[in-house]
């Protein structure tokens, strides 16, 4: 069964990779990053707000997630303690 699947996939992969979908008016796809020192001097682009927002978002999201997990954890742990003391009282 699995061999058949692999065979079919292999059979179709050449046709998938051979034809390209034409896209009009797109800038050339980047193949490698070229450091700026290899080109004549350019002005620094005013991209600071975007950069700052991106990094700030990453930090905020990590922080918020850890806080969320921590909150859920304390809630569950309190309930576990409550239940365990209830069971101990009954025993």
């Amino acid at each position, binding site marked *: 069964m*699995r061999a058949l699947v692999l065979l079919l996939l292999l059979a179709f992969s050449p046709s998938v990779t051979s034809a390209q*979908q034409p896209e009009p008016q797109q800038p050339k796809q980047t193949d490698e990053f070229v450091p700026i020192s290899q080109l004549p001097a350019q002005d620094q682009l005013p991209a600071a707000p975007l950069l700052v927002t991106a990094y700030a978002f990453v930090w905020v999201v990590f922080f918020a997630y850890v806080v969320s997990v921590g909150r859920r954890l304390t809630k569950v742990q309190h309930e576990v303690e409550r239940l365990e003391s209830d069971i101990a009282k009954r025993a």
Partner: protein
Amino acid sequence: MIRTAWLVLKKDLTVEVRSLEIAYTTLFFAVSCVLFFAFALVKEGKAPEDGAAGILWIAIAFGGTLALGRTFERERQSETLRALLMAPAARPAIYVGKLLGIVALLVATEMVLVPLVGFLFQAPLLSHPFWLGAVLLSGTIGFAAVGTLFSAMLVRARSRDVLLPVLLYPITVPVIIAGVRATAALLQPDVELALVRFWVALLIALDVVFVTLALWTFEPLMTD
């Protein structure tokens, strides 16, 4: 195993033919979709470019979701799914039988939708009938493969009506994209057959992946 699948398919078709309830309601819903999109998108009597292809596939997707929900709702009401699963039949065969039933229903709907969309949008949909058939069939199988699996899984779940689109649409996005692009390529004045072949190949590859995954997971997903 093929016999089991054929029996399941025959049972479904027999039940459906008696009332044709799901067929008619799905068809009507799909046609309403097409009209809705026509009203929303047509400007000065002309649809946007490639609009016909997109509208056709949206109608198939929405109609298909409705058909899937209704088919398995019917199973749930008469508890026939549980009976089927208790029968000494290979589970994957049951899946295949159900899949073929859904595909048959959708293909019947598409036979009405295609001329309708062609008529409303002046789109030469029937210029390459073989290729259009290949596109529609492979796309429908891909959509139905995932849909049948998820609908069967959801039969016993809560909020199943809402959850089916939630589960189904993200996974079937590649199928819809490929279907739309292939259909749009067929509607161009000078058709690039190589491009159509590429999209059909991708659709068939997707079908193989989805059906294989579904066959593999149907058994553990349907057992309690």
